[in-house]
């Protein structure tokens, strides 16, 4: 394990960004989101949750796939180059990293999404332990340990120091490249980190959602959950906005569109939301015509369909962003609880 003084972080970021792109939480107009590090970036490592998770680093909100250029009656197609320049995502939380795991399931299984795969290959994740978890967090429900994130490098911010532990080969390589700025950690430091981990875990135990039960939610629950009358009331406040999907670390749906540049077309993909009325709209119409269906789809996907196809892995990581950001205070926890309650009433 290594450590670095907080005041030297800027030098660290500088060094990383000399050879790679560095993406980390930056505060812009009072909101903290992952962004490319620059000399004058307002780096914010204290805000627990960036508004959006860091998934953009691997799966950007919009990206061009290829460009067609028209010259008279000739048409040329230029595919967008795959990511080759290495980059580091610094400051993801354990839940965000888990989110990337979920995305891997989608994009790295056959057929492989080459754009995503290239980014994963060239990206190194430095994950940070959650110093002060908040009431909306429920990562433990999905087996994630916010105190000891699993990534290429794990870091802890304690007092005036940041502790650095390389976990994977990529992590080692990154560590090597910045070694001159890192100090070796001693036993007392190890102790401090352990203490921090304990403190985090203690707090997590106290959080209101930590003991949320996922009983009954698994890949086999399709029929029962899909047909439940609970949805009929539950969806009603839903605005059909895409906030929950866009802040979610695991939502992976995208739409493919053409942008007319006047002399050709840029085909791009951008995040889509199953909450939108035009989601998966086809020439023949829409397969989900009501908000109830769309609302149900999202949670069924997270808690039933995804585990059914991915060895029981839920596509929720308990980051709590939807809990915080839903304009109508709806969220996956309320859905789970509503079923729990209804189940209770039944029994």
């Amino acid at each position, binding site marked *: 394990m290594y450590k670095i003084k907080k005041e030297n972080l800027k030098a660290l970021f500088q060094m990383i960004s000399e050879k790679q792109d560095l993406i980390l939480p930056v505060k812009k107009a009072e909101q903290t989101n992952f962004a490319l590090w620059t000399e004058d970036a307002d780096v914010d490592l204290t805000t627990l949750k960036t508004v959006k998770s860091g998934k953009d680093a691997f799966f950007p909100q919009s990206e061009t796939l290829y460009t067609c250029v028209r010259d*008279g*009656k000739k048409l040329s197609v230029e595919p967008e180059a795959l990511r080759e320049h290495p980059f580091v995502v610094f400051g993801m939380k354990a839940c965000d990293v888990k989110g990337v795991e979920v995305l891997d399931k989608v994009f790295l299984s056959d057929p492989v999404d080459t754009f995503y795969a290239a980014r994963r290959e060239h990206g190194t994740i430095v994950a940070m332990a959650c110093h002060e978890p908040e009431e909306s967090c429920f990562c433990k429900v999905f087996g994630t340990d916010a105190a000891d994130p699993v990534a290429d490098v794990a870091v802890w911010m304690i007092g005036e120091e940041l502790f650095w532990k390389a976990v994977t080969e990529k992590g080692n390589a990154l560590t090597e490249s910045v070694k001159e700025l890192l100090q070796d950690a001693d036993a007392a430091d190890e102790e401090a980190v352990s203490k921090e981990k304990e403190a985090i875990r203690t707090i997590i135990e106290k959080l209101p959602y930590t003991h949320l039960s996922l009983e009954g939610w698994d890949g086999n629950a399709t029929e029962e959950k899909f047909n439940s009358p609970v949805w009929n009331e539950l969806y009603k406040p839903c605005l059909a906005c895409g906030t929950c999907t866009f802040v979610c670390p695991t939502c992976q749906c995208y739409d493919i569109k053409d942008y*007319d*540049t*006047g*002399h050709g077309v840029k085909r791009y993909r951008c995040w889509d939301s199953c909450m939108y009325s035009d989601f998966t709209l086809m020439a023949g*119409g*829409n397969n989900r*015509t*009501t908000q109830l269906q769309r609302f149900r789809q999202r949670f069924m996907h997270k808690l039933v369909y995804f585990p059914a196809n991915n060895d029981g892995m839920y596509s929720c990581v308990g980051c709590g962003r939807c809990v915080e950001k839903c304009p109508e205070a709806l969220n996956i926890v309320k859905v789970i609880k509503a079923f729990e309650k209804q189940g209770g009433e039944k029994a």
Partner: protein
Amino acid sequence: MQRIGVFVCHCGTNIAATVDVKKVVEMAKMEPGVVHAEDYQYMCSEAGQSKIINAIKEKHLTGVVVCSCSPRMHEATFRKAAEKAGLNPYMVEIANIREHCSWIHKDMEEATKKAVILARAAIAKVNLDAPLQPGESQVTKRALVIGGGIAGIQSALDIADAGYEVDIVEKLPSIGGRMSQLDKTFPTLDCSACILTPKMVEAAAHEKINIYTYSEVEKVSGFVGDFTVDIRKKARSVDMSKCTGCGVCSQKCPSKKIPNEFNRGLNNRSAIYIPFAQAIPNVPVIDRENCIKFKTGKCGACAKNCAAGAIDYEQQDEIVTKKYGAIVVATGFDVIKLDQYDEYAYSQSKDVITSLELERLMNAAGPTKGHLERLSDGKAPKNIVFVQCVGSRCSDNRGKSYCSKICCMYTAKHAMLIRDKYPDTNVTVFYIDVRTPGKNFDEFYRRAVEEYGVNYIKGQVGKVIPQPDGTLMVQASDLLDNKQILMEADMVVLAAAIEPNKDVRKIATMLTASIDTNNFLTEAHAKLRPVESPTAGIFLSGVCQGPKDIPETVAQAGAAAVKAIGLLAKDKLTTNPCTAKADPLACNGCSQCMNVCPYGAISYEDVQVNDHGVRETRRVAVVNNALCQGCGACTVTCPSGAMDLQGFSNRQIIAEVDAICR
């Protein structure tokens, strides 16, 4: 995808001299949907049109772009050609590469580039064109003539003679207009009243003509073939059905100090009055502002003395609403106010008068019974100076930029008449140019000089200075002699500029007829459609369109009548199919479009919809195609884009924008 043919016109050298038409053809071929492109000398010619027709047939074109002159010129021509070939005429778009390109750009490369872009925009638009079917609307077989001067009377008579009903609306108590104020007319010197009065009588007696005097147009709605007009019949305070026109009321009226408008205020009239002897109708009107009865409640002399019991103080304004198929505007003119021309001392001396005032002074029915005398002292003037172009041809803000056209001739007339009747009077005319284009006009002017000894001096008058002895000192320059002249005069006559009647702006607004910066109504085409307004169904008669003398006015009045008759003779009109259309699935039913529609063409209905499987009853906008004129105000008010304009759809305009900007 459309199959588009592009036809590029050379317009002789009008286009081809500055636009490389071959290049435009070549570039057009690159555009999506274009399967045919060619150029030709004159696309609008018979041969050019048959090229279009053949291409449509042979290449199975579904859309046509003609790169040529303005669509305002030949859009209709090319649409008809397309129709002949079996193509929906609304699948034709014009790229205006003449007026908007070749004529204004000098550089060939630049103009060609622009022409290509304009062609592209038109191609982009055709790509999204959809066949449209014009609807039909009824024609109300009645015409309205606004203004009862010689122009209005002539138009009305011609329309009525063709068998259609005509209503004349005249603001004043009698028809007759300016011409009734004139003494003699040039170049024949016959008496104005003698030739006008029979026309007035004829109009009044015509069974197809209905005259609303002392009335004004208050509101106009509708469109060509189907105008609805509110006419305000102002309270005359005299029952027209009872009045015999005996005139006793005027004689008995105690309020007699009111400036007589007919005589340009040179004498007075009573509060109840008939404007002039030959007035039609020969029925007096009470000028309520000056009537003692109306001002104080006391008097009633006229009522007491009216044997027919025709006086009705309780009479109210009445609104008559009628439908018309065509409207002829004949609102005429006035002379400008001269209060800004201090140098001519018009407001300082009674002996400085306008030519129209002179007409009244010389008229036997005028304030001096036709004796030419100075208004200040009643003496016969010995030296009379005429000043031309007072307020005409001025580029300052005091006057008018145009030539009033009639002044040269009437001044020659006045000069001649004075010299004829009072040979010992010296008459001097100061002119800038003497303009006499007209049949027998120059001969007339020469007679004034050669036979009547009128002294014409080239040079504008600089100043008229009233002298203590009551004479006027005229300071001018003689440009041919290069001398400054100081000349004593007893009377100065100013040829004041004429301007359209003040009310014309209001009327033009009601009719949505366009008007130019001088308040003359604009014609649909300066040369080819001089008596039509760009607004369909509105025709222009007389000076409201531009300065004219009497024969021209009568000619134009007849022409306007013929155009109106041509319209009224149709049973039905095809309506513009470029109307708004609402998509019931996207409509919110919010009523905003209805609020901005100037024609009341939008209503709301509850309809059953199937919105991607959701079946429900919705309140949605429905456009009445017969009423919609296609302005598009509704389309912008509609936030969801449910309301769109056929032929100018949102996507079409956006496609044009894209084509231009790319």
